[in-house]
């Protein structure tokens, strides 16, 4: 009897899956068009899956192996089941292979079940709790029904009742795993995820065969010339179709939630919930079925689910009342990319958030907090603080900095950033200039010709102001000849390096490398141009700025510099690609969404755990945020130092004639810099 039932079951499941797939694809296609290379994309799926995706998943070894066993087992078992049971080709080795596959899958599903017994808070519950059972049903069912096929059991073993039960079990498994894949359900992630890998909006983020790192972190530019194109995303259908596909791929593993600084600070943002809300909006309905951690709410503890609802063509953020998402959720994001870095489904949360912010800022003029003021300042004075743009070099009146306007060509263009107006950052800049002079670097600055890089404007969603600033900066840059740009602001660094390229006028290119000062100093040290006095026996820890680390992959150079300084470097528990944000990115200090605690306080807590005397940073934002932390009662404040200050303090000032062993002289030099 199973011989008749199984093919019917399998093929009807496949047929239903096909119908579901069409429906699902139509849901995605509500989004705006976004051309993709279909065949090349599909062809790239295996590599993207096995290399890039696995690279992320493999950070959790147990889960990775579980997934390999379960998913690999399932794909093999399903494929073989179609052949063996669907087409009745049980001969030879195929049946045995099917047994092995389903057994592997069963083993994997045991681990899945184990994980679901006491699931961590970041995992979604609800339908996901039945997934291990469904996996077991499928794998066990297929295993048992395959036993007669390979001749281990007689074909009619157990009689019709057993056969019926088995068929029911297999049907359950097929329902969850095959047509559940396209009709919505936990297994949706497999179908949408595979296609998302194929049609990802940022194909360049995947590695290639030549071993390219594959990094694509710059935001995509809005076409402001086209006055028909929507400015940002107002409704779920305003996303491009492959963004919607990406949201649908979410497996609700909650890794993003676990690393999100805003979520940890109790700000009303949970990246996982946000993505799920987008799925709800895409399909239409309310978020009542969401079974993971909700958005935190400083007043109410948690925002209850079920209050928000949306439709594909309805607004995501309501002007009044509630819609799909509250505006404060979008403004809580620090754009630190921790979620994107952790996401095994390669979902681009930050892109989506900035897209929605663009609508709020450009269409509704609803940038919260001091956002509107900052943007007005950027428009009127080219810097967020509203300072006189003619006073960018006032801090350096005594330094006699060479101006690009005078020298016209230099080896290095030193991009100072808006930190020129901040008295704390001026110390960093002074230190950096001291270092550059000690290494005899031929550098020049733009002086009053420099403008804000546009980073803050862009993260606040004001693409128009960003593009205006960027184009004017590009025009300035293209007037001068230099070999590279060095900056001590990772935000400017990222924007100059990754986001200006798209805005160059036709026929022109950004034909210069951009270095963060830590990278550049490391190059100077490695080439022996910087005489360093050894003997700094401090215990320091290093905080990775998001825009240097996750955005640009530079984790090593600052550490190499610190090693060259001879300090004792202790790592925080979360460092490198898992570094926790200081809370200063994405305009978060400007929009200032309240939470239960502050992000920089948590980060300084991380610092204190290491018992380091100093925390070394490489970003003016991080310096400002971390220095703004008031230590808990009874604790000494941990010093916050920019890496340039560390290097400047360690410069060997002894004349080259005498051997460099005058520690006293070196420490005096230290005093000089620090004072």
């Amino acid at each position, binding site marked *: 009897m199973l011989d008749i039932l199984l093919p019917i079951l399998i093929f009807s499941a496949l047929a239903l899956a096909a119908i579901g797939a069409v429906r699902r694809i139509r849901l995605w296609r509500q989004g705006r068009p976004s051309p993709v290379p279909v065949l090349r994309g599909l062809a790239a799926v295996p590599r993207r899956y096995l290399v890039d995706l696995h690279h992320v998943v493999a950070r959790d070894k147990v889960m990775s192996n579980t997934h390999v066993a379960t998913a690999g087992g399932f794909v093999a078992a399903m494929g073989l089941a179609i052949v063996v049971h669907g087409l009745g080709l049980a001969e030879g080795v195929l049946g045995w292979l099917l047994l092995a596959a389903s057994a592997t899958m069963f083993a994997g599903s045991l681990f899945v079940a184990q994980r679901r017994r006491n699931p961590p808070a970041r995992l979604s519950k609800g339908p996901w709790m039945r997934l291990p059972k469904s996996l077991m049903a499928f794998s066990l069912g297929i295993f048992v029904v395959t036993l007669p096929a390979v001749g281990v059991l007689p074909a009619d073993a157990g009689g019709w009742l057993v056969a019926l039960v088995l068929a029911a079990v297999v049907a359950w498994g097929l329902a969850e795993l095959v047509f559940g894949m396209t009709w919505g359900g936990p297994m949706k992630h497999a179908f949408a995820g595979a296609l998302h890998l194929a049609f990802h909006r940022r194909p360049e983020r995947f590695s290639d065969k030549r071993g390219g790192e594959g990094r694509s972190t710059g935001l995509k530019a809005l076409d402001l010339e086209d006055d028909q194109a929507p*400015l940002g995303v107002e409704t779920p259908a305003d996303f491009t179709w492959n963004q919607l596909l990406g949201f649908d791929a979410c497996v609700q593993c909650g890794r993003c939630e676990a690393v999100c600084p805003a979520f940890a600070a109790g700000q009303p943002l949970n990246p996982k919930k946000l993505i799920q809300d987008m799925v709800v909006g895409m399909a239409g309905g309310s978020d009542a079925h969401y079974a993971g951690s909700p958005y935190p709410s400083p007043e109410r503890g948690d925002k209850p689910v079920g209050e928000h609802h949306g439709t594909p063509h309805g607004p995501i953020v309501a002007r009044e009342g509630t819609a799909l998402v509250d505006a404060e959720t979008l403004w809580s994001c620090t754009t630190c990319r921790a979620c994107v870095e952790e996401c095994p489904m390669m979902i681009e949360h930050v892109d989506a958030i900035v897209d929605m912010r663009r609508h709020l800022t*450009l*269409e509704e*003029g609803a940038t919260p907090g001091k956002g509107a003021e900052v943007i*007005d300042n950027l428009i*009127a*004075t080219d810097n967020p603080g509203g*300072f006189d743009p003619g006073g960018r070099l006032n801090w350096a009146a005594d330094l006699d900095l060479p101006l690009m306007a005078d020298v016209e060509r230099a080896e290095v263009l030193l991009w100072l950033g808006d930190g020129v107006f901040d008295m704390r950052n001026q110390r960093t800049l002074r230190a950096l200039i001291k270092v550059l002079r000690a290494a005899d670097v031929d550098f020049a600055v733009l002086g009053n010709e420099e403008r804000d890089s546009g980073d803050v404007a862009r993260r606040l969603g004001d693409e*128009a102001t960003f593009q205006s600033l960027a184009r004017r900066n590009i025009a300035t840059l293209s007037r001068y000849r230099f070999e590279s740009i060095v900056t001590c602001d990772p935000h400017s660094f990222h924007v100059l390096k990754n986001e200006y390229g798209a805005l160059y006028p036709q026929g022109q290119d950004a034909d210069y490398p951009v270095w963060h000062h830590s990278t550049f100093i490391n190059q100077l040290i490695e080439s022996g141009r910087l005489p360093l006095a050894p003997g700094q026996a401090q215990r320091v820890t290093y905080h990775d700025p998001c825009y240097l680390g996750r955005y640009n992959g530079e984790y090593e150079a600052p550490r190499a510099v610190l090693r060259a300084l001879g300090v004792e470097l202790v790592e925080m528990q979360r460092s490198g690609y898992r570094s926790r944000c200081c809370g200063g990115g994405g305009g978060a200090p400007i929009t200032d969404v309240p939470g239960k605690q502050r992000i920089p306080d948590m980060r300084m807590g991380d610092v204190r755990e290491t018992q380091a005397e100093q925390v070394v940073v490489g970003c003016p934002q991080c310096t400002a945020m971390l220095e703004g932390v008031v230590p808990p009662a009874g604790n000494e404040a941990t010093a916050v130092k920019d890496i340039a200050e560390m290097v400047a303090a360690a410069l060997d000032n002894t004349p080259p004639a005498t051997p460099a062993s005058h520690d006293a002289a070196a420490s005096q030099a230290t005093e000089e810099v620090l004072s």
Partner: protein
Amino acid sequence: MQPESAMTPALEVTVLVSIGRHPLTGRVRRADQDARGVELARSLADAEVRLLHAGECNESSEAALRGYLGMGFSELALIEQPEGADVLPALSEALDATSPHLVITGERAERGEGSGLLPYLLAERLGWPLVSGLAAVESVEDGMATLLQALPRGQRRRLKIRLPAIVTVDDAAPTPRQSAYGPARRGTLETSAGEVCNDDEWATWQVQPARPRPKRLKIVKAASARDRFKAAAAKAEGTGGQVLTDVTPTQGAEAILTLLRDEEVLR
């Protein structure tokens, strides 16, 4: 909305907007006080708000005027005038024609003479009452508006004024909302020609960027030559401030109280 809103005709409000100038960089922008006026108008219930500008129509003025459109307006009436023209006849003609209930404007322009006379001249010409330095409009009913006028140091005075009227807004008026790029780009400038009246007097004046005003010297009368010299040469109150350590709380409080009394901030 209130149920009676269907019966009462909407309050017609015209905001006179001008082209502003950023104090540091001199770039054109929406004028701050005018923008506050627009914000005030937007906050009025059942108001039908029109924006009106008389002046040049060129690229830079358009950019500034679009700043007002970005506050959520689809159009702005622009009476085209040559540079340096006296816009009074054109504006009063336009206001006469549309006869709004309430005209809101900033106290003075950020460019040109910026004498702040325009609202007064308009009021005189139209024969309407005028209230200056407004912080808020509390209510409008039966042809009377209840207003809050800003007094120094956050104080307020309540006034009642018969409509139609002209009011000018103070820096204490609500901060203008953000000007959004989308509506600013989409909105239209309804250009019309108006009566042109050249300001000949202005052309004869010498205009130059403001020089810093000389600091007034403290003139010390009589006494000795040495005192006069000292007064002229001494640094103005370069005292580092008094620090009271090891005092009882009461002594400290007394010192503070003395200073508060000297400064007359205690009421």
